[in-house]
């Protein structure tokens, strides 16, 4: 598994891009933050509505924002992949080593996966369809509230551990 990950995680073309154009890293970091604000803004408003805040919104109307949240996530994913595959150009450490030894990066990825599982369960359990019918002022079912609270908690955890990544210990 290690040789496979070592081969696939380091992309010389991305490293070359970062070496050649010094602005790429900083601009991508900014785009990563823009994507995060879009994701938290759109997912957060849906979660808050389901939890009972801003109940004046019909849920179906808030769901129109979801494509913007998906766009924010894709922006984060694309720039995040660039950071991982090109990190050697920035800190001279193989991305596999960072992934293996930085506990905060591992926790961030773990919570991203958990947020994905939470979203999947929200759809699979039928809660997504159940809340679609909620008009202004109506209360969400308890299970939908649980998924909304979990979603807020998980995305905040993702942001927290993301900020701790640079203070993680790398052991080459």
């Amino acid at each position, binding site marked *: 598994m290690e040789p496979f990950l070592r081969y696939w995680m380091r992309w010389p073309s991305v490293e070359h891009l970062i070496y050649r*154009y*010094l602005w790429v890293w*900083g*601009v991508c970091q*900014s785009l990563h*933050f823009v994507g995060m604000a879009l994701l938290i*803004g759109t997912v957060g408003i849906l979660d808050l509505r389901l939890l009972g805040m801003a109940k004046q919104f019909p849920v179906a*109307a808030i769901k129109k924002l979801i494509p913007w949240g998906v766009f924010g996530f894709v922006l984060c994913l694309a720039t995040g992949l660039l950071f991982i595959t090109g990190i050697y150009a920035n800190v001279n450490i193989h991305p596999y080593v960072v992934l293996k030894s930085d506990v905060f990066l591992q926790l961030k990825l773990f919570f991203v996966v958990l947020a994905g599982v939470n979203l999947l369960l929200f759809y699979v359990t039928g809660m997504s369809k159940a809340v679609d019918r909620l008009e202004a002022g109506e209360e969400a079912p308890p299970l939908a509230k649980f998924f909304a609270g979990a979603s807020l908690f998980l995305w*905040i955890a993702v*942001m927290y551990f993301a900020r701790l990544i640079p203070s993680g210990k790398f052991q080459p």
Partner: protein
Amino acid sequence: MQEFLESIENSGFSSYLRETPSVLGYSTVLALHTFGMAFLVGLSGVIALRVLGIVPELPLKPLKKLMPIIIIGFWVNAVTGVILTTLAIRSLLANWDFYVKLAAIVVAIVALTKMRHAAFADPNVADDTPASADARRWAKLMLLSWFLAVLGGRLTAYATYIRIQSAAAVAVAAILLVLLANILVRRSRSTAAARRASLATAGSTRKLEARV
């Protein structure tokens, strides 16, 4: 002045936050700064999307209820921002990029306040009513200023020539995006006009047939 700034930078509080190996020090303050930014920029961005008519299905009035969370986000950002500034105040105050970031934040907050007043001024307005031209202008300015503030914040850690290259890259990308958006908006308007014209023709044909 330099001695005063040095005393702030080397105070017990600043030294502790900067040097403690605990993740509850510098990294946590930085994380709180990010949370504040995500809620402040994210939620005010959602209001701007509705004001600009990009998500017209979203009722306008209830968006006002998001303001307390936006204000909490702002204060979390302001307090953690001041703390983070004290950790490296001398280098930050000598960094022009830091002033660009601060100026962008001030403009964004003014634009947010003006947008809020313009968009939520009339309490009797219907939820599906498009926002006023004034509100749309402030929404555009706010989004642009938030982007500049985020970009400026990220680039404070870089050398001047990288910042200039980044600014040039963003300017080129922004011009291309504006051109692309203009082309798409014109195309969608002409398609919508053509559809309206064909519907009107079909309607008048049906009326004629009914008369015959």
